[in-house]
């Protein structure tokens, strides 16, 4: 079988954690096909883009801080908010979630590597270069400026003649291919590389959610990639897919984009749900309540994702018949998510809680995500949607979902897994500072935007008249934004100092349940030598407490018993 052996400069000894002071230095990282190093690089990439995307939106917030501001020109404003949204979704949230997935899925299923290591590297670099290409547009004559969902006809050449939209297409196509290859890799790894004995119903919830996410990506990204290719044809070769005067359809873009876009929302939230499920269980010292319900509702969410996208288009004018059906079906998608929320609450109920920073983010998520979920259900009601669409209420909703859900999930995962990835512990006191700064800044920024939206402030306008209350609310929002910015800088400082000189982390600092904690921190190049037998969803705990193992009490893994 060794006929395809390829020598890569990699150490035989334990990997260097997060530092580059290995025998090969940077070259070892660049040429790596190790899933742990690739996962870490995904995370670094996400952090880098998060700083850039955050800077962009702070400039936007400065512009919006007072009425009739002239800090930014309308053109610059359009480019900045477009790049902010596109960056945060495609080059921050996605790579970070996939980074955790690629790092931890093999560890959690007792595998030593992903199914296709070199494809794994290809995925990372495609995504990175896709992002870089999109940012190159700033130098090439102007960044994309038609919003992150880039509606037709605004994305057509006569309305957006700078090459920005072309770079948007090319960059997202590249990144999209990278995401698809990474998803194929995850699906095959999870289906084929589980340690013998691990049944589907023994998989950690995070692995389940990554499996569902990867399937969602495989089903939804083709729609986006096709739309991007069609748009490129429109712009470069004068095709007429979205050009109404040439017989095309502008609404077609919306259909294709949201056929991708709604599943994308779940692509961004399901892995976070997985992370939270692990964290709630470990820091409540209980099995996750209703494992089957959490996984089952995850499957339901994934399937429903494809039946509701038209709710993003209720204001398009497709008619009352269409709107009615999708209004009804969209309200249904609240059910599985609600089931999960109650499962997590029940997981905490009666547990001995440990309020680590990871757990704090998980609890904050319950509050923030519920707010975002409720405003989402509000949008499913057609008259409310007609009134509030394209206002700051939408901005508030999307950020409560993506920050309160996805980003808090990423932070929770970071604080949970950082000791495993780096072999170092983060400063607990600073971590708590970071938590409070970020949560306060986040709510300060976006809670008031619900009011602004209801007052009628449209989104995506570069300035606004001095109407009663608008100036004050916007100023609060800007101040909150800067608080989040400061918190992010604190996070970077914490990460860098912890990697440099943080206290060494033990292999299992949280007394956790799943197999990634059965290896050293950081794991060696070969993840495992041997793996404890898997007989439940908490194999590492079973191993540590053989007399109290889950498989000895069949009801326990269903969360029926208390602790």
């Amino acid at each position, binding site marked *: 079988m060794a006929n395809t052996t390829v020598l890569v400069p990699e150490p035989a000894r334990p990997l260097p954690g997060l530092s580059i002071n290995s025998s090969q230095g940077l070259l070892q990282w660049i040429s790596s096909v190790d899933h742990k190093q690739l996962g870490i690089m995904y995370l670094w990439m996400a952090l880098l883009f998060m700083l850039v995307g955050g800077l962009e939106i702070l400039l936007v917030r400065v512009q919006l801080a007072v009425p009739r501001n002239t800090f930014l020109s309308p053109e610059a404003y359009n480019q900045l908010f477009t790049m902010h949204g596109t960056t945060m979704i495609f080059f921050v949230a996605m790579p970070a979630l996939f980074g955790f997935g690629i790092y931890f899925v093999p560890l959690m299923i007792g595998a*030593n*590597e992903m199914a296709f290591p070199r494809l794994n590297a290809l995925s990372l670099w495609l995504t990175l270069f896709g992002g870089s290409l999109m940012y190159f547009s700033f130098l090439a004559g102007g960044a994309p400026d038609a919003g992150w969902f880039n509606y037709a006809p605004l994305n057509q050449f006569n309305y957006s003649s700078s090459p920005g939209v072309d770079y948007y297409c090319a960059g997202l196509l590249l990144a999209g291919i990278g995401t698809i290859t990474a998803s194929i890799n995850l699906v095959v790894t999870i289906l084929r590389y589980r340690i*013998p004995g691990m049944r589907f119903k023994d998989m950690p919830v995070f692995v389940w959610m990554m499996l569902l996410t990867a399937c969602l990506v495989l089903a939804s990204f083709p729609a986006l990639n096709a739309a991007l290719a069609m748009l490129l044809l429109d712009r470069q070769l004068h095709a007429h897919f979205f050009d109404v005067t040439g017989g095309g359809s502008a609404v077609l873009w919306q259909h294709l984009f949201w056929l991708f876009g709604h599943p994308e929302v779940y692509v961004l939230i399901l892995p976070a749900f997985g992370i939270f499920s692990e964290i709630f269980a470990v820091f409540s010292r209980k099995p996750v309540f209703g494992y089957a319900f959490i996984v089952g509702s995850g499957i339901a969410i994934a*399937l*429903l994702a494809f039946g509701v996208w038209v709710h993003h288009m209720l204001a398009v004018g497709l008619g009352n018949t269409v709107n009615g059906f999708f209004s009804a079906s969209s309200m249904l998608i609240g059910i599985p998510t609600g089931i999960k929320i109650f499962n997590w609450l029940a997981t905490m109920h009666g547990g001995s809680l440990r309020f680590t920073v990871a757990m704090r983010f998980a609890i904050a998520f319950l509050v923030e995500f519920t707010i975002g979920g409720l405003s989402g259900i509000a949008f499913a009601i057609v008259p409310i949607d007609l009134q509030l669409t394209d206002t700051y209420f939408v901005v508030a909703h999307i950020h409560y979902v993506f920050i309160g859900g996805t980003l808090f999930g990423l932070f929770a995962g970071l604080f949970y897994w950082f000791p495993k990835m780096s072999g170092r512990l983060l400063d607990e006191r600073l971590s708590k500072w970071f938590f409070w700064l970020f949560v306060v800044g986040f709510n300060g920024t976006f809670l008031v935007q619900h009011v602004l939206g209801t007052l009628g402030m449209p989104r995506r306008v570069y300035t606004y008249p001095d109407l009663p209350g608008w100036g004050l609310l916007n100023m609060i929002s800007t101040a909150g934004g800067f608080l989040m910015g400061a918190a992010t800088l604190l996070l970077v400082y914490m990460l860098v100092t912890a990697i440099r000189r943080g206290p060494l982390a033990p292999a*299992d600092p949280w007394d956790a349940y799943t197999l990634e904690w059965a290896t050293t921190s950081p794991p060696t190049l070969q993840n*495992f030598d041997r793996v404890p037998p898997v007989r439940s969803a908490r194999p590492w705990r079973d191993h540590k407490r053989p007399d109290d193992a889950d498989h000895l009490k069949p009801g326990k893994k269903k969360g029926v018993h208390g602790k």
Partner: protein
Amino acid sequence: MHSPPSIWAQWHASPALLLLVAGLAAAYFGLSGGRWQARGGLYFTALGLLALVEASPLHYLGMHALFSAHMVVHIVVLLLCGPLLVLGLPPALPSTVARRLARFSGWLRGHTWLAWLAGVGIMWGLHVPAVFDASFGGLDAAFGLPALLPVVAMLLAGALFSWPLVGPTAEAHLHPLAGVVYLFSACVGCSLLGLLITFAPADTYQHYARAGWCGTPSLAPDFASNPWGLSLADDQQAAGLIMWVPCCFIYLGGCMYLVAKYFMADEGVAPPPAPPLRGRGAIRPLTLASVRLPSPAGEGPGVGLH
């Protein structure tokens, strides 16, 4: 002006339909040895539903005026009646029949795509505009036999489609999670068709475009007396949407049933997944017996394995 008969009075059972229902009922007792067996209720619910949607005013509406009503009939017959008939088959069958059914199940297990194609194909096939319009051709023919043909086809397709999931031979069932993929892909197939119908030009289905509202002017959209006010375009959209959205929820309900079945089955340790294939750092397949770890009692939690 004479007032048209109320739509609620339009009950029409063709002789062919009655024969079909009676034949299916007779088949049950033939198979069950004249005894009522477990889950017989499902079987006869299916027959009742079939008779109801085929003889009721809903059917009349569907045949003469509303595509959307027609679509509801389709979905009930294909996705409810067909599968319920299979689910309700008597568990204890004469041995020759049981052997034949087992052989058929085994064969179908190797050709699952055929069952899938039957379920999805019949939907697509029947809604090709030419086929669709032609299916109304023999409305008034003797015994209503031609009109019953699509119904029989849908019943058969529905039964065949659900066979790999709930057929009488449990050993030949798909793995529940594979069943989820099976149902979901079928749901996508039907959604695409629903989407096409929803956004197709309003006169795609000539039968309804030409429909003279069959002596029931109260249904015509441009009559002031019409309380429902469905225009031709609205009606076609509703039909497409019924196939797109609620129909998907039936598949989804099936998926949830399979997921629940999977999690409730407390079987022993399943056969391990196939051993890893190749690749750098591929996992060393460890059998459970080979696993030997330091005792946590001695060294405390947090001990690595190296």
